[in-house]
């Protein structure tokens, strides 16, 4: 692209930014109606968790979260459809290997902690899943071609488990009569924990598998490939 065109785009975008800033200012100075935040905070005791962000994610807007897990799965399936993963790096030296053997369990432990703490403080399935994914990334960097994950067959099942549990909980509550993804109040805490735990595992597996960058290659130890 030539210089004048770049300059032109730049100038237009500067103008665009100024207009946006003005619009944003106008939006903020409009007389606020009933704030959604008040409603969200007032309904918190009924939601089964005490962290308002977790309440929005897994209760008020749980359906969003269900679809978002599907987006993650779609990305992984898309990556797998492009071909096999590249071979991993060469095995790490002893210092790195020792560090990895320390850090990975720590990451998994911290992931579990974040999952549990998400009920009443910042944390939750996505943060925990991201840590698990990071553990997978570390393992692959240290020479494990498959980022610490099991065979393709098992990866497929782990990757769908989170959405499956979420969707089945939703269908279960529908059949039970409260409505799709509407937790009965007595059960809400445990149903949320169940759905979040499964989601954490799936998110971690999907992130690590996506980092491997392709369909897992089969190993002799896997037995028959599906």
């Amino acid at each position, binding site marked *: 692209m030539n210089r004048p065109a770049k300059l032109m*785009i730049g100038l237009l975008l500067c103008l*665009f930014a100024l207009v946006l800033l003005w619009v944003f200012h106008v939006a*903020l100075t409009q007389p606020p109606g009933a704030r959604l*935040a008040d409603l969200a905070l007032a309904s918190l005791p009924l939601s089964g968790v005490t962290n308002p962000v977790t309440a*929005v994610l897994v209760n008020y807007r749980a359906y969003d979260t269900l679809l*978002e897990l599907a987006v*993650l799965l779609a*990305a992984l399936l898309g990556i797998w459809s492009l071909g096999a993963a590249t071979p991993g790096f060469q095995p790490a030296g002893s210092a790195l290997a020792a560090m990895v053997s320390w850090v990975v369990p720590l990451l998994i432990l911290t992931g579990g902690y974040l999952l549990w703490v998400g009920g009443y403080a910042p944390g939750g399935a996505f943060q925990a899943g991201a840590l698990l994914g990071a553990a997978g990334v570390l393992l692959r960097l240290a020479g494990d071609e498959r980022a610490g994950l099991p065979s393709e067959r098992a990866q497929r099942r782990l990757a769908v488990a989170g959405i499956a549990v979420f969707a089945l909980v939703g269908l279960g509550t529908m059949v039970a009569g409260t409505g799709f993804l509407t937790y009965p109040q007595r059960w809400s805490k445990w149903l949320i924990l169940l759905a979040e735990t499964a989601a954490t595992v799936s998110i971690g597996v999907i992130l690590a598998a996506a980092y491997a960058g392709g369909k897992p290659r089969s190993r002799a130890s896997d037995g028959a490939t599906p």
Partner: protein
Amino acid sequence: MTAHLLYGGAGILLFVLGVWSFLVHEALLRKVIALNVMGSGVFHLLIAIAERGSLPPDPVPHALVLTGIVVAVSATALALAMGRRLEDEDDAR
């Protein structure tokens, strides 16, 4: 209000910078980064509107940002994988 405008303005700046980079640069990696910068700009704005004075912050935009991040990660991963696939093919020639 000033804090809002500073924070929100930074978000708008990031968004517009991302658009600029997306339009001007050819390389895939730059375009993908540009899209992520745009995304960060939008998420910035969401965080900015969550806070209103002395009241407790609005959790809804916070949750939307978390959802948005996951969606952005997924799209980025797919774009990078497709880009690498193209590059591998070029290398093989």
